[in-house]
């Protein structure tokens, strides 16, 4: 390795000087697993809480009580009550269930539709590729919320429609990512060997290309879960997603909007919960990416 003070010539030099490089290497080792760990632990706790919500919630999420309307947080109701006397803490727990399910289900929808299309487009090329790519162009020309809005505006809103709509919003980016990975893999020797053996296209895509394309697709997908949660919450907030009396976080905040001066806790609780969830998934996704991304790896040493 040339000395950092050596005459700067074109090429051949490492990207950075010696000292910071070494420091960064330590950091790469220290930081990535920490993020991954914290994210994984947080998310596990959240998933556990969400799964156990009906049993650990102190009250039913739909139990109303006129006597207990808009009570501030107390020992009996940790996060207070809303305008119908429903316990905000219990509703928040049930909301975790909806939000996580929304995020993961919508991402699953985008993968189920996007990955096969991307594989097909990247492998077959030609007119198929052209049609698929031009379609993604059109879909990407809508701002994300607008695309969701367009799909949800026309029929009465419901949770499963929201999930599908949010999933479809992220199909184009999934297609593009999968396609570009497939393009790279299609030229590899093991794919050519399979083709020479006379394997069917389906087999090549499914057994040769897909297993190698998974890691980057999954990293991308894990980060997209948070986008899906946020987009879903936004659409529920403007009334196009989950419907009352559901305890969806976006819907809870929207219902608490007129009561802000009297009962701010009704709006704050689900907002904070959403923040924590998104941070957990983001940490996990970032950690995964840093651990798997060849770019960060190379940088690390």
């Amino acid at each position, binding site marked *: 390795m040339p000395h950092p003070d050596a005459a700067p010539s074109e090429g051949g030099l490492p990207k950075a000087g010696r000292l910071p490089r070494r420091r960064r290497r330590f950091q790469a080792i220290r930081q990535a697993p920490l993020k991954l760990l914290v994210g994984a632990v947080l998310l596990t706790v959240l998933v556990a809480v969400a799964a156990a919500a009906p049993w650990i919630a102190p009250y039913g999420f739909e139990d109303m009580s006129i006597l207990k309307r808009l009570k501030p947080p107390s020992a009996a109701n940790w996060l207070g009550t809303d305008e119908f006397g429903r316990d905000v803490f219990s509703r928040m727990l049930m909301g975790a269930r909806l939000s996580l399910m929304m995020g993961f289900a919508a991402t699953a929808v985008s993968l189920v539709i996007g990955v096969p299309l991307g594989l097909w487009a990247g492998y077959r090329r030609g007119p198929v590729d052209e049609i698929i790519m031009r379609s993604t162009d*059109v879909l990407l*020309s809508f701002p*994300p919320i607008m695309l969701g809005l367009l*799909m949800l*505006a026309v029929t009465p809103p419901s949770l499963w429609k929201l999930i599908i709509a949010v999933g479809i919003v992220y199909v184009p980016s999934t297609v593009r990512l999968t396609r570009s990975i497939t393009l790279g893999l299609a030229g590899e020797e093991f794919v050519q060997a399979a083709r020479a053996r006379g394997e069917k296209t389906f087999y090549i895509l499914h057994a040769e290309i897909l297993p190698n394309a998974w890691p980057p697709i999954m990293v991308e997908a894990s980060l997209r879960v948070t986008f899906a949660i946020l987009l879903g919450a936004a659409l529920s907030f*403007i009334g196009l997603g989950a419907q009352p009396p559901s305890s969806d976080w976006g819907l809870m*905040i929207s219902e608490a909007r007129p009561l802000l001066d009297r009962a701010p806790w009704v*709006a704050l609780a689900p907002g904070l919960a959403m923040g924590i969830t998104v941070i957990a998934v983001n940490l996990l996704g970032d950690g995964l990416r840093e651990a798997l991304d060849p770019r960060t790896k190379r940088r690390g040493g």
Partner: protein
Amino acid sequence: MTLYFLKRLIGIVLILFVMSLLVFGITQIMPGNVATILAGQFADASTVAAIEQRLGLNDPAYLQYWRWFSGVVVGDFGQSLVMERPVLPLILEAFASSAILAGLAFVLVTVFGITLGVVAAVRENRFSDHAVSVFSYIGISVPEFFWGIVAILVFARYLGWLPSGGAGNLNDGVLAWVSHLVLPVITLTFTLIAHVSRLTRSSMIDTLRSQYVRNARAKGLPEGHVIRRHALRNALLPTITVLAIDVGWLMGNIVVVEAVFSYPGIGRLLLFAIERHDLPLIQAGILLIAAVYCFANLIADILYGYFNPKIRYGHAAS
């Protein structure tokens, strides 16, 4: 460059055409017959039939599309069903209010996002870098409508400095008008600054480690000069693309933020139209927002080409 520009323009026209098909097609699935909505619940069959006849609702879909599309091309988006006024002036008026919000937010995002990102990169791993990182992590983790509500709570309810919603009238003085803009603009800005500064930081760090920056430093140029004249220009290239994407976010988030602050812009109009099943209004609103986004992307591509000497559009760009 001109050739590239023309090609992109034709591409956009094509995309807008396909979009118009999509928007029209989807809105046709809308349940509830428009004529019944117009005539009201208690209208008899003959009134409904007369309205259907008048609006041409019995014609085949392609004919209806053609009628709508040929109007759109010359700027006639039809009549709003609910407000019984032509759609175009309604939309333009709302769009102007939204454009003020979005424009201000965009300027703030550009200035602060880039500044914060560059500061964080230059002071990599020092306190200000970590502060910016934490700030942006929190910023992108919470949806803007929640920030909007927090802002209302703090600045309108508790401190009482600013109005919690609505839009000011310029006749009541500039101050009243501006005060209504502050909270929505801050809300729109917050998440996106986080987004832009994160990206600028990583791209700037990459650039600062590059060969030619080392070269410039080795020549003994002052650090400020190296950063401003050498590094920044290249580091900002990915930022341009992200800013264009953020215009899309902005156009989408504006719907949510206008709902939070009851701001009379295109987003509120669109939600109103969706609630009342006002088809022509929905179609025009979505199409307009999508068109703005398309042109923002075109402008970003042109700027990208302008700033990046490595790309010269021409034969390779097709």
